[in-house]
């Protein structure tokens, strides 16, 4: 039994090591290669002042991670795209990658100190290969309190 397990685990580890090496090699030659380690949350957070500066300079693409009712009825940050966690990102990726490639920052937000929807969407976008993604924590409330421009629309995602 012991010999069986030891040799079996050794062989299984070899399969994992060889498979992992092949995976990493394959990723390194892909045209759409992914970063091996996804950026952490602390790397992604920005302040309201930074977000405002990006907006004034026309370098912000806002992602509203709240539910579609809040987005449409309560309003949203200027030209924000409504994307919630677990939504299909595919229809938005090309546009976001293009914008980020032009030096814009993709800023995800939701509402409330404890809200993690913005973070989840930012992480999903980042791991989907969208560069320059960041999170404005409690973004809706901060933006509204700062008296910055808002948009209202009946448009649903």
């Amino acid at each position, binding site marked *: 039994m012991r010999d*069986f397990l030891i040799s*079996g685990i050794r062989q*299984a580890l070899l399969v994992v090591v060889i498979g992992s090496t092949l*995976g*990493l090699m394959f990723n390194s030659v892909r045209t*759409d290669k992914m970063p*091996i380690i996804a950026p952490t949350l602390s790397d992604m957070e920005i302040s309201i002042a930074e977000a405002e500066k990006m907006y004034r300079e026309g370098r912000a693409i806002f992602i509203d991670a709240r539910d579609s009712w809040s987005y449409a009825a309560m309003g949203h940050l200027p030209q924000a795209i409504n994307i919630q966690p677990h939504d299909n990102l595919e229809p938005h990726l090309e546009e976001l990658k293009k914008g980020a490639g032009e030096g814009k920052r993709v800023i995800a937000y939701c509402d409330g100190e404890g809200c993690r929807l913005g973070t*989840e969407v930012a992480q*999903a976008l980042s791991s*989907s290969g969208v560069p320059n993604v960041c999170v404005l924590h409690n973004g809706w409330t901060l933006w509204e309190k700062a008296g910055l421009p808002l948009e209202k629309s009946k448009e649903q995602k």
Partner: protein
Amino acid sequence: MKKAKLLKALFSPRGVLFIRIFLGIVFIYAGAIKINDPQAFANIIGGYAIVPFWLLNIVAIVLPCVEVLLGIILPLPFWRRGSAILATLLFAVFLAAITTSVARGIDIDCGCFSTEVGSNPVTWLTICRDIIFLILGAYVLFREYRRVP
């Protein structure tokens, strides 16, 4: 009579080889689809909310290749112990991940045989299918253990 013949065939060395080939095809098919779109696969893994975020990409990059390699090795006459152990372990991990997501009521895609959003939702049927895979893997492992003199 037919049932007895079927059972006899299943318990024969040829039956075990057949199961190994079947499981090999399952792993190759599942891995090849994910290799094609690692970013979509990373998103699906993220939906399970059990892998730390910083690990998502690396898991999405290496797991499909490990699956394909394992699928190739499973029916071959070498590393038989290792492939049987790894196949059983992977099926157990997949089953645990799927079961916990169903139990927590998380509405996500399985990511088992597709990376398209909405094409492969996790249901109780998915769990039943994975239980069958796990039983087959465990059977191959058991037969491999019994094969050792």
